[in-house]
């Protein structure tokens, strides 16, 4: 008797081909990451030269570059961008400090949670920018209301994410720390805070976006310096090239903030072997 082997209807070929050619993907990551924004710029230039974009309403890249050069030559761009950056940095640092401290108070103690959490949810519900007029009435038109506006937005994002990160720390690890006789300080600095770090960085990312958004609002009213001031002046004087330039500056600022958070994630979350993409 011979056995009759029937072939299955279909066999998948799972054998891998030759190793992929490494030279083909030798383009550095950062170049690939920049390709999107560069393509946008290119599309803009092409649309302008072909006349698809009305140069009166949407100035071509060269005109915007010219406007930028004029502002640099007269020193206005450096002064205003510098002033705005200072506001964002000050407001963000303050916001991080306040957000982390109240997240610790609410995250580590029951009473802190009861006192703080619902209050912060109230603040979260109030649009930051609804406060702008009030802040100006309370604090005048100096630096304080601008920085306070940025600080509040950042603090709320940092708080909400860090707090949920602290509450999400694996209880099993807290138990281990107890059985290993870790002190309260070791428990906080080496178990709870590192455990909350991924969420903190999510908060930082959202906080930084909110910081630039707050800046626009803060500087659009009664500012005498800053990119928001440049923006509203350009609007009044119908300088569309400057308006576009300011948009680009906001975009670059956002991109740099994002790069900063990614850098921090790589440095601080190296222990995670999360999905890296294919």
């Amino acid at each position: 008797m011979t056995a009759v082997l029937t072939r299955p209807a279909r066999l998948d070929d799972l054998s891998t081909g030759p190793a992929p050619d490494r030279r083909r993907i030798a383009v550095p990551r950062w170049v690939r990451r920049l390709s999107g924004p560069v393509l946008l710029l290119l599309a803009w230039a092409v649309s302008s030269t072909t006349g698809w974009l009305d140069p009166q309403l949407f100035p071509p890249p060269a005109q915007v570059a010219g406007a930028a050069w004029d502002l640099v030559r007269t020193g206005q761009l450096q002064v205003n961008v510098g002033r705005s950056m200072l506001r964002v940095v000050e407001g963000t640092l303050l916001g991080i400090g306040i957000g982390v401290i109240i997240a610790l108070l609410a995250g580590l103690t029951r009473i802190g949670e009861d006192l703080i959490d619902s209050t912060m949810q109230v603040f979260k519900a109030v649009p930051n920018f609804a406060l702008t007029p009030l802040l100006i009435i309370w604090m005048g038109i100096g630096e304080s209301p601008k920085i306070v506006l940025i600080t509040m937005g950042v603090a709320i994002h940092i708080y909400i994410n860090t707090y949920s990160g602290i509450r999400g720390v694996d209880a099993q690890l807290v138990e281990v720390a107890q059985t290993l006789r870790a002190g309260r300080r070791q428990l906080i600095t080496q178990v709870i805070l590192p455990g909350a770090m991924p969420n903190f960085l999510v908060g930082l990312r959202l906080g930084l976006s909110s910081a630039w958004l707050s800046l626009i609002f803060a500087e659009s009213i009664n500012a005498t310096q800053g990119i928001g001031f440049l923006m509203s002046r350009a609007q009044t004087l119908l300088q569309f090239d400057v308006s576009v330039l300011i948009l680009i500056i906001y975009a670059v600022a956002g991109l740099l903030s994002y790069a900063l958070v990614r850098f921090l994630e790589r440095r601080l979350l190296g222990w995670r072997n999360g999905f890296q993409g294919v």
Partner: protein
Amino acid sequence: MTDVSPDSTPSQAVEISGLSRSFGDHHVLRGVELTITRGEFIAMLGHSGSGKSTLLRVLAGLDSEASGVVLAPSARAVVFQNPRLLPWKRALPNVAFALTGDDARDRAKAALAEVGLAGKENAWPLTLSGGEAQRVSLARALVREPELLLLDEPFGALDALTRIKMYRLLRELWSRHRPAVLHVTHDVDEAILLADRIVVLSDGLLSLDVPVDVPLPRSRDSAGFAGLRNRLLAELGVHEGIGAA
């Protein structure tokens, strides 16, 4: 309220009497009595939900709601089924976590070498295999020179081949450091291979307490292994004979 009191009579590592613990109406432990001699290796068998882990958690000082008298040395260490390493610390700092003394790092390094992980000091826990992670967890417990080592189904998540290697390692480490061991498991073979004495926990009470008279080195075909195994399975109310009509 129990006190896990730091002191006990010199020859005893653990003395438990009248230990009870209930969760709501569910009485998990109902007056357990157990004594463990210094340097003794005890395995505790029981079905899931028999209260084994509850008892171990009381001894570990993680349960303050139980009533009864529990005396245990203050130098205790626990190894859980899940290695519970801090994922944001590399292997060596995990072992050295909460260790005191100037030589903490060196001691941690020696402990890692002892469990066969020399050279893995800088590995992240998430890159370790299950067996390796559990060995780091063992090193973290042993580096504290415990007088009482509590093992809560430490090999439950490991594959059968890794498990055999871990048995040898654990027994070796135990004979070198001589802590009293309470090894909680539901694997009858594991209990016989490792322990000097086996207790069975059923319905919140110790229902059996037998010495393991199987000569060392032990394997599953050692004399006396099958007999003891059958006795323990019967006590646990389990019958083999798979495939019987």
